[in-house]
């Protein structure tokens, strides 16, 4: 029994990290039909910025964090203004290729201009083991889960309750109708992209101590987050939370009880099952037929 609980904690701790990266996928798809294949890199870049500010320049943590979020939002803003604006008319495939290109550009850019080596990032919360009846975890695990869950829930409330949030929902449902209702659609889309980057920037400091800071860390993060978003429900913010946790748990449990070598395959099988049984995702709401 303790084994199972230990595994659940492990799966949960990783899953929550997938969640924070997954929200962005959901937001961007909803408002602008963008599948952002560079989402993982949007987490990777702020990781390096944090290292640069906090470790290399030795700036205090909170200052580094704020500056990183600023830099990240700027990146999101530029991404939207320079790329997305022009690409929206091109269709899904064009955006896929363009974001693939962006992903490679950011990845190799970082590898060449900074370092191909893996960098260490200090833990923000204590990793001292806490033992309750043979089950071991650390305060970092708890803090990660609590803080990220709160962020996601706050975001969910923001989208559902505030005027701005409702405007985002309107844009997501129908751009033409939203414009007719007096909503400045382009502004909302820009806002969503900046919001995505803020979220990935925040996600970066949770992910960095666990995954290490590496130019290609975005690849696995991005893919897992993509899967998490689809499994959880691509049309609901809390879908990101549900999906991330599910992926984390399934990965860990399947690896422990079936086969560690085929770990990634189980996530895919889960994906297939969800798409067959409940295509709108675990926490999603049924939309019109596909």
């Amino acid at each position, binding site marked *: 029994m303790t084994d199972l609980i230990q595994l659940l904690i492990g799966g949960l701790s990783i899953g929550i990290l997938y969640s924070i990266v997954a929200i962005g996928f959901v937001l961007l798809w909803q408002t602008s039909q963008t599948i952002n294949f560079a989402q993982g890199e949007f987490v990777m870049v702020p990781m390096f910025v944090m290292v640069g500010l906090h470790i290399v320049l030795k700036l205090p943590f909170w200052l580094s964090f704020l500056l990183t979020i600023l830099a990240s939002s700027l990146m999101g803003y530029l991404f939207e203004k320079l790329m997305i604006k022009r690409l929206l008319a091109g269709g899904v495939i064009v955006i896929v290729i363009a974001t693939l290109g962006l992903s490679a550009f950011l990845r190799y850019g970082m590898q060449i201009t900074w370092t191909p080596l893996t960098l260490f990032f200090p833990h923000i919360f204590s990793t001292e083991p806490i033992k309750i009846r043979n089950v071991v975890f650390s305060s970092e695990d708890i803090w990660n889960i609590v803080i990220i869950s709160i962020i996601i829930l706050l975001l969910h409330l923001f989208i559902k309750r505030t005027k701005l949030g409702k405007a985002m929902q309107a844009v997501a449902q129908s751009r033409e109708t939203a414009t007719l209702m007096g909503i400045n659609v382009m502004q909302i889309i820009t806002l969503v992209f900046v919001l995505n980057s803020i979220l990935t920037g925040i996600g970066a400091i949770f992910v960095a101590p666990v995954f290490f800071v590496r130019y290609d860390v975005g690849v696995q993060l991005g893919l897992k987050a993509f899967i998490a978003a689809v499994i959880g429900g691509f049309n609901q913010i809390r879908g990101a939370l549900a999906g991330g946790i599910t992926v984390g748990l399934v990965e860990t449990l399947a690896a422990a009880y079936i086969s560690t070598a085929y770990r990634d395959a189980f996530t895919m099988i889960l994906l297939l099952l969800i798409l067959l049984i409940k295509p709108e995702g675990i926490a999603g709401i049924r939309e019109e037929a*596909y």
Partner: protein
Amino acid sequence: MKGWKGWLPWGVVIVLLCIVPWFLKAYTLFILSFSLVNIILAIGLNITLGYAGQISLCHAAFMGIGAYTTGIMVTHGWSFWLSLPLAGLIACFFGTIIGFPAIKWKDHYLALVTIGFNIVGYLVMQQEKWLTGGPHGISNISRPSIGPLKLASAVSYYYLLLFFVILAILSSVWIIKSKWGRAFMAIRLNELAAKSHGVCSHHYKLLAFAIGAFYAGIGGSLFAPLLKYINPESFTFFASFEYLIMVVIGGMGRIEGPIIGALIITMGPEILRVAEAFYLIIYSLILILIMLFLRKGLVVVVDRLREWIPVLRLTKR
């Protein structure tokens, strides 16, 4: 303008491609040969994606299936010529299986399912040592011979590849111009409208994947003896992304598209070698720029050239 004049530029290109191997250094010939393999693969993906509008991000897995079929058979003494059609058919079988999810899902759902298939395929190639040699791969894949004629040398294998490329181009033109091709385009443009005109979109989606996978299997089968060694690393979903890029950059839904795309993407890093380690940054930047400014693909450039150069206007089809 129909008729033989439309084929003139093609003829010139073919003749050029026939002469060129004698003047090239070994490594350039190798890269060109690899480009030919990629043209066959891109043509297949263009049918699935460019014409039928189905996102397929597991094309490299189909290639791998073809490559391993030939690799396993040839190293066990079977004839390459037996393995070639088998490679195509086995890949085609798996393509049909992938076609089923495509019936229900589109866009990012389909993208994810196909990536998933690629990941599972890669894991099988890597784990099942008894079948695929595991992560070490399969070495010493010998090149075929036609009767007494050995195709082992770089130049002779190049001609074999060229032959299959021409076959691939002609067969794809035939498919596109047939009833199937029209059905594919109808589904891509407006599935609902196509259905209401009696086009069974289910059948044609399966067919689109099956055909694309067949080409990939053939391409993979030809790839194995080119390199004489295969391992799972050549067939990851990253490789599938590259084929996607080839088709889109070249120009989706156009005959010339995959040819241009495959040549540019395969030979691109070589051309950019002067930039040393920076070539990858330049390469990805070019991808972004092409999507921003030339989103219909580089085939648009060829079209413009046809407009401006009077003699080529004769060859407009």
